[in-house]
C-alpha cells in the first residue's frame, strides 16, 4: 500500500479519519468495511466507535487521543499485508413497499417526466438488488446504491415540510426510505410499513452497512396487515443469506 490512500489524519482530539479513493463503488465499500471490521476487532476492549461512509472510516475514541502519531501507526499496522476478503455474513432483506398512489405522491409526475407507466416505474424499482452503503442523515436512514438510471430524477425544487414515516423516495441517483416523518426533497413513490429504526431494540437497526435490499410490491390491504403485525410485535424481516452475484 504505497499509494496516496488510505489517508489517515486526526479530526479533532478524539477521532481519526481514514479516507480511501474518493469514489462510490462496491469495490471501495468492500475495502472500507473490511478495514472497519479489522479495527473493531483490534479495539475490542478499548472503547472506540467506527463509522463508515462511501469511502471513509471515522474512528472515534471515548477519550482524547494522547499520541495521534502512535495511533495512526497502530491503524496502519492493521492495514498492512492483509488481503481484502469479502464479508461472508451479508443478508438480503426483502422489503415490502405499497406503490399505491395514495402513498406515491410523485408517481404521476415521474410517469409524465420519464415517459414511463406506473407499472414500469414499479418494475424498475423492484428489480435491482440494492447495496446498503451506510446509515446516516436520520436514525435508520439507509444510503442505498443501485438505482436504475431510468428512474433517476432531480429532487423537488421546494422540499416538502413533512414527508411521512416510511415514505419511499428517489433523489438523483439515490433511493431510500424515510425512517420517521421529516422535511424532505425526494420524489415520493410509495411507502413501506417496516420499522427501520426501533429505539426499544438492541441493536436499534436490524439492517447494517454492507447488507443488500430488494423491494417487493404489496397492496394497500397487505400494507395494513403488515402494519398490524408490527403493532402486535409479530413482524419479522424477510431475509436470506446473500451469496453475491459475482
Amino acid at each position, binding site marked *: 500500500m504505497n499509494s496516496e490512500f488510505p489517508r489517515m489524519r486526526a*479530526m479533532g482530539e478524539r477521532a481519526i479519519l481514514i479516507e480511501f479513493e474518493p469514489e*462510490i463503488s462496491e469495490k471501495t465499500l468492500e475495502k472500507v468495511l473490511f478495514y472497519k471490521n479489522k479495527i473493531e476487532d483490534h479495539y475490542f476492549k478499548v472503547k472506540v466507535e467506527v463509522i463508515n461512509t462511501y469511502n*471513509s472510516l471515522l474512528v472515534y475514541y471515548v477519550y482524547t487521543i494522547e499520541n495521534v502519531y502512535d495511533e495512526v501507526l497502530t491503524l496502519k499496522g492493521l492495514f498492512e499485508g492483509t488481503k481484502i476478503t469479502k464479508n461472508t455474513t451479508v443478508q438480503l432483506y426483502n422489503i415490502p413497499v405499497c406503490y399505491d398512489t395514495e402513498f406515491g405522491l410523485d408517481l404521476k409526475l415521474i410517469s409524465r417526466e420519464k415517459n414511463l407507466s406506473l407499472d414500469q416505474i414499479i418494475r424498475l424499482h423492484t428489480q435491482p438488488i440494492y447495496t446498503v452503503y451506510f446509515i446516516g442523515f436520520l436514525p435508520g436512514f439507509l444510503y442505498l446504491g443501485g438505482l436504475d438510471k431510468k428512474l433517476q430524477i432531480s429532487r423537488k425544487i421546494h422540499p416538502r415540510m413533512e414527508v411521512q414515516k416510511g415514505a419511499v423516495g428517489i433523489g438523483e441517483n439515490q433511493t431510500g426510505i424515510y425512517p420517521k416523518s421529516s422535511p424532505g426533497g425526494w420524489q415520493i413513490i410509495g411507502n413501506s410499513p417496516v420499522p427501520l429504526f426501533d429505539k426499544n431494540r438492541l441493536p436499534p*437497526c436490524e439492517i447494517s452497512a454492507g447488507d443488500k435490499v430488494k423491494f417487493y410490491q404489496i397492496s394497500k390491504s397487505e400494507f395494513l396487515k403488515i402494519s398490524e403485525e408490527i403493532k402486535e410485535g409479530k413482524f419479522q424481516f424477510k431475509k436470506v443469506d446473500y451469496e453475491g452475484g459475482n
Partner: protein
Amino acid sequence: MKAEIEVLQPGLFSTIQDPGRRGFLKYGIPMSGVMDFYAAKFANLILRNNPDSAVLEITQMGPKLRFSHPVKISICGALLSPKINNFPIQNNRVYKIEAGDELSFGKREVGCRAYLAISGGFKTKKVLKSRSWFEGVTDNFKLIKSLKLPYESTNESKTETNTSIKFISEYLATSEIEVFPGPEFDLLSESEQEILRSHNFSIDKNNNRMAIQLQEIVENTLKPIITGPVLPGTVQLTPSGKLIVLMRDCQTTGGYPRVIQLSETGMNKIAQKIIGECVSFAFLG
C-alpha cells in the same frame, strides 16, 4: 413516595443530558450529551457525584421547579440569576433543598447554558444506554409544564464542597475558540484560509443543540464532497458561504466541506455564546 421535581414553568429550552450516547453512531443516531462538558462536569464534581451523572441543561431563560424531597443541588455554567424560594443563590456552590422548595431563574448575566446537578444525578429513563434527551429517541425532548423529573432524595445535611477545585469562569466571556484545520481546510485558497484565521464571526439566530450557524459569508469555490463522516465540532462551509458549526445533536454524515474541527474546549466555549456574540478561531497544530 418517589422524589421528583415538578416543572412549574418550563422556561426557554431545557433538556436532561449526560455525556451522551456511545455506540450508536453507525445507526445514524447522534451522540447528544451536554453542550458544555466543563460546566456540567464541575456541577457534578462539587456535589461529589459521578462526573457522568445526568444534569439539566438550561438555555438562557431558566425554568421554575419544585422539589418533593430534600436533596443537594449545584448550578454551574452560565449565570442565570438562580433563586431558591426567591432568595438569590450563587453558581458553583452546593445548596441544600428542602421538601417543597422552589428553584427559579432570573436575568441572564453571562453565558448561554447553565447546568443544574443533583446528588446522585437525575434518574430519568435511559434509552439506548443514555439519559440524554433527543427527539425521536427519548419520549421527552424538552422540559414542559407539569413534567416530573425523578431523583434520589438525600437527607445528609452537610453542604461542604470540594474546595480543592475552582470553577474558571473566564471562558464564558472569551471569544477565542481553539480549533484544528478540518479535512478540507487545505482545499481552501490562501485568502479563504486567512479569512477563517483572522476574522470575527457572529452567532446567527439559527443556533441550537444540532448546529450553530455563523452570520458572515465566506465566499468560496469548494465543491461538495462525497457524503462523509462528521462530528460535534465539525465546521461545514456551504456553497453559499455559510459556516455551520455542528454541535452535540448533529447528524453523523454530511456532504459539505469540513473546513474546521473545534477542540473540546472550543466546543464548550461556543456553547456559551448567544445570538450576535462574536467568536474568532485560534488554530492549534
